[in-house]
């Protein structure tokens, strides 16, 4: 394996990984007296699939929330695309090109699948209120152009048949897929997936894994994901961060992480004598 700390490298399956897209520097996040994340640093490279794993309560979701702007850490710096990011609201983070899905699906239940995914295009919509009120020129053109992009994503994720179904009526697995579609519709530079396979059966997991790999492959989207299914994580990801009790205990390729003694201890427990 090449040196991964600084620059580009090539993965085992021959994909070229680019420069650093996002870098977290010495992040510490506290809720009152509870330290959720303690002095964690890691980076995400362009084109990479990066996983964050760890036992329950390790601070993985908190970490993702820091990246997506829900929490502002008390200490540390977030660097995105070569610039230090000031404290931001989540919608500003979205406008910078970071999209995410949620552990518990967060779709708009009252809207159709199509409308949900169209909402994901929001950061690409520029027409003003008056143009929209009269449905003239720019507003209509923009709607059609964005619809074309959305239809490509619908094709890609194979959800054509449920296009106009209200999301509330869909089964769990499809909802997960629609949520992925909505995040993809933003054409994000960085896609965050919070437990994309939670609660799925084996086939659904296989489908979802295939979609994640295809997204990375076809659109070149950088992906950071949290997942509990070790088999999936080790197969999908290029590099893995392991967290436990808010601290980083391992970072490297799946093989390196698998053989890391601290990681084994965290997952299997350690003998106290």
């Amino acid at each position, binding site marked *: 394996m090449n040196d991964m700390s600084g620059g580009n490298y090539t993965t085992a399956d021959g994909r070229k990984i680019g420069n650093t897209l996002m870098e977290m520097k010495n992040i510490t996040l506290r809720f009152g007296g509870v330290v959720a994340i303690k002095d964690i640093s890691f980076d995400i490279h362009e084109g990479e699939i990066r996983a964050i794993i760890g036992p329950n309560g390790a601070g993985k979701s908190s970490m993702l929330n820091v990246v*997506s702007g*829900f929490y502002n850490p008390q200490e540390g710096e977030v660097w995105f695309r070569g610039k230090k990011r000031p404290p931001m*609201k*989540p*919608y500003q983070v*979205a*406008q910078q090109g970071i*999209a*995410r899905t*949620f552990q518990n699906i*967060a*779709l*708009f*239940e*009252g*809207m159709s699948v199509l*409308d949900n995914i*169209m*909402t*994901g295009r*929001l*950061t690409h*919509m520029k*027409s003003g*209120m008056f143009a*929209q*009120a*009269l*449905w003239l020129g720019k*507003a*209509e053109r*923009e*709607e*059609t152009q964005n*619809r*074309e992009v959305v*239809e490509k994503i619908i094709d890609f994720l194979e959800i054509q048949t449920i296009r106009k179904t209200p999301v509330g009526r869909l089964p769990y697995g499809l909802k997960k897929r629609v949520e992925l579609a*909505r*995040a993809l519709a*933003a054409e994000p530079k960085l896609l965050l997936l919070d437990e994309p396979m939670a609660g799925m059966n084996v086939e659904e997991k296989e489908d979802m894994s295939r979609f994640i790999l295809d997204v990375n492959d076809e659109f070149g989207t950088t992906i950071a994901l949290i997942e509990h299914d070790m088999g999936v994580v080790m197969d999908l990801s290029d590099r893995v961060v392991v967290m436990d009790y808010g601290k980083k205990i391992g970072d490297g390729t799946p093989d390196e992480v698998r053989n890391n003694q601290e990681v084994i201890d965290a997952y299997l427990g350690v003998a106290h004598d």
Partner: protein
Amino acid sequence: MFYREAGDFSTTYPQDSQTFPIKFDRYRYYVVLAIAFLVLPFVMNDYWANAVFVPFLIYSIAAIGLNILTGYCGQVSLGTGGFMAVGAYSCYKLMTAFPEVSILIHVMLAGGITAAVVTLFGLPSLRIKGFYLAVATLAAQFFLVWLFNKVPWFYNYSASGQISAPERSVFGIVVTGPNTEAWAKYLVCLIFVTICAVIARNLTRGTIGRTWMAIRDMDIAAEIIGVNPLKAKLTAFMVSGFFVGIAGALFFAVYLGAAEVGESFGIDKSFLVLFMIIIGGLGSIFGSFAGAAFMVLLPVLLKNIFVGGLGWPTDLAAHLNFIVAGGLIIMFLILEPHGLAQLWRLAKEKLRLWPFPH
């Protein structure tokens, strides 16, 4: 048989996302418009205009306005009466201050002023939600009624404390004041309703509508995909205020002719419009019309049955009216919580398959 998508192929995205995807619906829409504009004005008389059509049309605008705020954006408002009063009083002040300007422009400006005021009262929505926001808008209702009672400048220091609409005409046709013809009142309201409904439909099917609905359905997820909650909520308050203000201005200038704020724009107005959108269907433009029609027509219908048909005394009929209307509202909410718009959708689903069972 005739109500089918079959054979009606959309080959472009604009075609696919049009308001009435089924051909029959499109023709029905044009027929309704043609009758409303070309037939009804010629057969309109005072009774039909004052009892049915003018209040129905004006309440439809108010219901569309509230539906945008509550049905589409999920922000409950109990201040509709007060906001209508803002429209009415600003229209009155504009009419008396600038008599040479067209009343149509005054009504639009009244909508704009109301939009600004409602946006101001919408600011707390960034911090509070649900019932608590409803209480905040209730405060707006009481404050506005108090303000228009207390400050004589708003009613031009008139002795009675009332405002009354001076006579104004559009293209030589009198549209406000006591000498207005029934058809003129009707036509003015119809034009405003048509424009408002088209604008509302365009806004709700596009980007802005989706941001509103995203905020309504899940505000956290909305924010994560780039919806600025401040902007989304305040635009909903603003657009809603614009429609409600127009409704208030027309209600005073065209329908009532003279108004006293506590009586015409009290809390009962707020509830009336809220009932309209709940019965009609939250988050539906058609529902706003259906709800307004239901709440306006039902008392007229019951009165005709009780007094005209059965010959009962008017006071008894008036009281029975409350009981029956209340009972029907409760029954509706139990049978179809999503309102008349949902019933309409179900009927259309059935009609699409008819005469086959599925």
